[in-house]
């Protein structure tokens, strides 16, 4: 392994860990009161909604159908594995049928 590659990998590791640790340090410095607590409480839902929204709503008909199927399976089974497997199967079939 070249020195260059080693420095690159160690640099990538260092910035990534600094970001991971930085969020916690940042939160520790924020006051644990009303607005901040409420804000942090809303972050997970907002981040997850942001993660899925572009893929589901602008992905194409196969992804939209699969997302609807995923939602249905979740509300019927309330099971994460069933939902994941069902979603994968749904998108596979939808793409097969729609040729996407």
């Amino acid at each position, binding site marked *: 392994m070249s020195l260059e590659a080693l420095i690159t990998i160690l640099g990538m590791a260092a910035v*990534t860990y600094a*970001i991971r640790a930085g969020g916690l340090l940042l939160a520790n410095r924020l006051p644990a009161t009303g607005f901040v607590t409420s804000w942090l409480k809303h972050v997970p839902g907002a981040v*997850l909604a942001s993660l899925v929204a572009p893929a589901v709503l602008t992905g194409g008909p196969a992804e939209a159908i699969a997302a609807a199927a995923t939602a249905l399976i979740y509300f019927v089974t309330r099971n*994460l594995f069933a939902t994941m497997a069902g979603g994968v199967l749904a*998108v*596979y079939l939808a793409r097969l049928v729609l040729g996407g």
Partner: protein
Amino acid sequence: MHAPAPYDARTQFWLGIRLFFPVAISIAAYGVVWGVLAGQAGLSVLEVALMSGLVFAGASQFVALDMWTPGSLPVLSIIIATAIVNLRMVLMSATLRPLVGHLPLPQALGTMFFVSDEQWAMTMAEVRKGNASVAFFLGTGVLSWFAWMASTLVGRVLGAFIDDPARYGLDFAFTATFLALLFGMWRGRGDLIPWLVAALAAIVTSRLIEGNWYIIVGGLVGSFAGALIETAKERRHVA
């Protein structure tokens, strides 16, 4: 949150591993692909092990492969690109304060190494249900790390036998998982507006800015909307 008893911690650790197992399979599918591509980009087995083991952040590792030109590596550009791709994790680790707050700071910071999209999402879903712990978070994190490490090495060593996971719909596994975790976080009408605002902001941002800024923008805008609505309501109650 109080520190769990030792037995409790072990149960929680294994619960995290058990619940995370299906997600780890999807992660491994992408790990194998990344390993194959890493071989094509000229990374040695040792370099693959070091990067997967120490960086442990899939999206940024895919970006790094795109920029990997052995002999004249754009060292600084790759490191900066890595930071930009992983910046979203600031939001994730910030929300883990209630979970690790009772630990001594060095230990709390140590656990942050495992923060990644899927295992953070699953931990927060458990937090919302009221039964997550540091041990649960570590269980999902350790399994996630082993799945990524092992699968990238397998891909690098086995080489070209592997297909694109998207051909089997496996790219949708993460979307389906995130959707299920999101539905599980629903606590009532108060969540509707922040989630809609987040989704809308993410869609608009993804159209306007390349890369994964849409996660950060949507996450920030949606959560601020939620906090503004909530504090405004509380103030009305007081007044």
